[in-house]
């Protein structure tokens, strides 16, 4: 669908854990709390990828999660952006080159935003989300 001006005021995110140690999840939850309050930007977590615009992936992609990550990515309607939170997704992190992984995230799905950190601070995660929003607008050419 063509993004409209309402994309400035709402970006719905779906969180996918592809085998993380849960540290990045705790920071994402902290980022949603009223202290940092992303909901004033219209950003909220949704329960189904079919409602989402943004896919937040944490963790390195373990073998069992690769198929499911591909399916969830395919179920998100266009236009979509993918954000990878934590160094595990960027390069494998502490699990670099492990026997259990199917590669870092960008070997499986195309990633637009990387948020490094182990775990990254909530401010960094929010910064990544805002950059994702800007990238979405730039991709589709929506006037801010």
């Amino acid at each position: 669908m063509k993004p409209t001006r309402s994309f400035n005021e709402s970006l719905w995110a779906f969180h996918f854990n592809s085998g993380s140690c849960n540290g990045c999840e705790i920071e994402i939850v902290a980022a949603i709390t009223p202290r940092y309050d992303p909901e004033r930007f219209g950003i909220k977590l949704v329960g189904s990828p079919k409602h989402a615009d943004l896919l937040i992936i944490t963790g390195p992609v373990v073998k069992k999660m690769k198929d499911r990550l591909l399916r969830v990515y395919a179920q998100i309607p266009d236009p979509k952006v993918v954000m990878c939170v934590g160094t595990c997704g960027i390069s494998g992190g502490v699990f670099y080159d492990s026997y259990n992984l199917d590669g870092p995230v960008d070997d499986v799905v195309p990633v637009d935003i990387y948020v490094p950190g182990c775990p990254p601070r909530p401010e960094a995660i929010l910064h990544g989300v805002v950059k994702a929003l800007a990238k979405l607008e730039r991709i589709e050419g929506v006037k801010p």
Partner: protein
Amino acid sequence: MGIFSSLLSGSGAWNPLVWLLAFVVAVIIVYLIWSRGEKSYKKGTEQTTPFISGNKEPSKDAVHVRGGNLYWGYTEALKGYYERIVPLHSGDMNDYVLWYLGTTALILVIVVVLS
């Protein structure tokens, strides 16, 4: 015309042609709303399958709910009633005849004795 007039009861009227007209209008409105939906999804890919936490959708005949299992909640909720009524339909002919004779006797008492 006579053939298209309404059915009248003492307190109301029913005309199925008016109903059909209303139904057609409703279908048209529904179609107009449906046609404003999102058309740009990719058919036949994963975008049309249900979201089951990323798992593959099982084949349809593995998840078809058979007839006897529908309305389980209803029969469970009314278990007190069903536990009393279903055994009465025992299949035993003696019971059937007794029910018939008993009902005849009851109606006899009500009509003949009590009036």
